[in-house]
């Protein structure tokens, strides 16, 4: 097989063809992802991709890597388990906004608190696509869908504000229509030594007429170059802008969970001695 240095973006394509609708933002998301993997020279057999359920959660099927397509909403704890079991692997969780912020929302603050070195890509289209058009937790109030025929009554989640609020150590937003920047964000996120979150604005031309390339293109704005990514309050303020900002909101130094676990092991050895199971059992006499 090709050595890592020679890996081209196309080498990361699997034998399976994407099953997304024509015009889906996830194609752009996936292509930028191939580019980032190629740039980072990640060997496919050392890459683990974890997802849940939804249109975008199918992404691992289309990538030449070790892939895990689990149940709805559990990508994060699964990815954490993979990373803790084998820290040598590059571990990336991917999915949609429903998988992440609705059924899986309970796992987010805790994954953030532990800060394992994994990257979380959320393809954000503000609608449920696989089940053919119902509101998502980040759909705007008033949005008309199959379950909200008179318009949604609920306020949307702001994924970026939420992540900064929880204390994630890397928070960014990308846009499927800007693949070059998106690729750069992936590279930065994967290189970040801790939990890295990227919200990717990914249009759904089939079920969300409010969120297409046509509607997004005039709205998205690059984060100002003078923004201090270590300033959490400024990052939070930026996340509240009505026009979606794209780029890195927040990034601070972090010690990944697996490193702290390694230190804990050393501490236990220091306190309790080299592991000797027979001696441990014998201590119960």
């Amino acid at each position, binding site marked *: *097989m090709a050595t890592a240095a020679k890996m081209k973006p196309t080498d990361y394509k699997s034998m*399976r063809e994407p099953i997304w609708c024509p015009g889906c933002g996830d194609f752009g998301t996936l292509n930028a992802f191939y580019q980032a993997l190629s740039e980072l020279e990640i060997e*496919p*057999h*050392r890459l*683990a991709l*974890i997802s849940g359920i939804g249109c975008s959660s199918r992404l*691992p*099927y289309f990538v*030449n*890597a*070790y*892939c*895990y*397509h*689990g*149940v709805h909403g*559990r990508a*994060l*704890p*699964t*990815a*954490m*388990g*993979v*990373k*803790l*079991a*084998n820290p*040598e*692997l590059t571990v990336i969780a991917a999915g949609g906004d429903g998988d992440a912020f609705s059924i899986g929302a*309970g*796992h987010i*603050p*805790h994954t953030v608190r*532990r800060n394992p070195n994994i990257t979380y890509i959320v393809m954000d289209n503000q609608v449920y696509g696989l089940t053919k058009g119902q509101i998502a937790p980040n759909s705007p109030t008033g949005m008309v869908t199959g379950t909200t025929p008179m318009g949604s009554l609920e306020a949307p989640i702001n994924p970026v504000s939420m992540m900064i609020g929880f204390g994630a150590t890397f928070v960014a937003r990308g846009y499927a229509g800007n693949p070059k920047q998106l690729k750069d964000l992936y590279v930065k996120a994967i290189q970040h030594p801790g939990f890295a979150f990227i919200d990717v604005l990914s249009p759904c031309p089939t079920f969300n007429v409010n969120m297409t390339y046509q509607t997004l293109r005039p709205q998205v704005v690059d984060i100002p170059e003078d923004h201090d990514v270590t300033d959490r309050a400024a990052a939070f303020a930026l996340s509240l802008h009505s026009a979606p900002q794209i780029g890195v909101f927040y990034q601070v130094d972090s010690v990944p969970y697996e490193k702290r*676990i390694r230190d*804990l*092991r050393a501490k*236990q*050895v220091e306190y*309790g001695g080299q*592991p000797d*199971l*027979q001696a*441990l*059992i*014998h201590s*119960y*006499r």
Partner: protein
Amino acid sequence: MSDSSVMIRIGGEGGEGVISTGELLSKAASRAGHSIMTYRIFPAEIKGGLAQFQMRLSDRSIRAIATEFDHLMAFNQEALDAFHETVADGGCIYYDPSECDLEGMEIRAETIPVPLNEIAKEHGGTNRGKNMVALGFLARIAGLDLSVTRDLLTEKFRRKGEKILAVNIACLEAGYEVGAESSNGRAVLPSPPNGDGGGENGRRTIVISGNEATALGAIAAGCRYMAGYPITPASSILETMSRHLPRFGGTVVQCEDEIAALASCLGASYAGQKAMTATSGPGLMLMGELMTLASTQELPVVVIDVQRGGPSTGLPTKQEQSDLKFAIYGSAGEVPRIIVAPASVEECFHLTARAFNLAERYQLPVIVLSDTSLAFRTETIPEPDVSQIVVENRLQPTKAELVGYQRYRDTPTGVSPVAIPGTVGGIHIAGGLEHDENGSPCYTGSNHNRMNAKRFRKLETLREDFDEWVADFEIVEDAALGIIGWGSTKGAIQEAIEMAAERGIRVSHFHPRIVSPLPEKRLRRFLEESPIRKVLVVEENFTGQFSHFLKAKFDIRPVEVLKAEGVPFNPSEIFDAIVKAEADL
């Protein structure tokens, strides 16, 4: 109850050292060569109040706890009031006269004052050493050697400094002396022939709880990842693993919920590590969806379910064997899984280790159905010899198999080699969608049939691999009665059968360790190739779950001997059912 066994109960205010007295006494008795079994009953609410510790000790092996006590040590009036009626005729109650007033009480048993507070103050200035006085006293009453108890205390308090140790030893010795006077030099138990009192020739035994044994069994089998969410009565498995597993190079995570716990275990297993979670009924239900994912992805994982009284929040600190049906059938869609049920603390160690081997060998989830009575009780068990524990690992692909690798290759055994992430050439997708041999989604009827057959074939392979250990059974010659039980009821059933034998009633006994899939050939032999005319199914639930399971597979109409009162069977209750069944033959 055999003549050579005694039941001791200690009661007092929470925080007075009731539990530590009991624990140290049980360890000292074990080191002296006795068998012990202890049982703790907790209130569900978090507050001080009455604490109690009960133990049975014997110079023979013990299989069940009894309900009548020979000795009660009451630290205070509340304990005396609550427990004096549980002392058997001819038993003895020891009480602290500075705490208890017997005036106006009707007490059947003999009463002996033991000035715990006074003696403790005399030797330590405060009454904090009263539990050590009680320990010394009871050690003498039980006929234990002072040196064994003193050595144990020395080990325990060495880290706390010379001064604290000296006070505790003084209290212990003073209590022992008072005990000598009270027992008139007569020990309640004869000295056992094979004392382990730290000596070199003694048998090696340990005193351990079911939950601790479960944790150590897992480590012995190679478990290096545990994730869990606190729940009574399983939490101490997570705690024991937290205390020890990192030192063995492992990882323990207290997760945000049971779903995250099992999800992360599956992630760890996918990455090649042996993983486990531990929970109780409510948590097992939350894990239901992921359990089916594990079976579909064919990932090895061990789920310990320490059953408690249900349904819903139920009786969270009490005994019940009522998760069996959910463990066997709790799935949307049809999935193979294996269920094992330890019958004793010793089996908590060994069956947990075997559960890992089964999970690895057949690449599926294995549920270990422990329960509250096993979780909290401590028993004297032979010290497990780590070098004798067989450790199995999942089948990995050969170099040849990695060319055109198929993760879910349809094989004669149903087991396909699994490549661990990091393996060149082993790239595959593990998914919950129905898939073909490559792991690609495939929804055709023929493929679904084929993959269902492949997954369930592993259980057929397991049945062919069945070894002696999968069930314990004894067919007694000419016995017209047979008892089938599962899990922690085994000891009580055995004692009941012995009681029946003394009355001339013969009873055979079948007790599977693998509950599902059932060891059917063995059970058929038990039922059909024996003189058994009537079967009693003994279990601690309300609806007879195992009995239903058996009736679905065998043409039997068993007598259901059920108990769902939050406490384990007393052997005499099973004995009564035997006598009745014998009369009805």
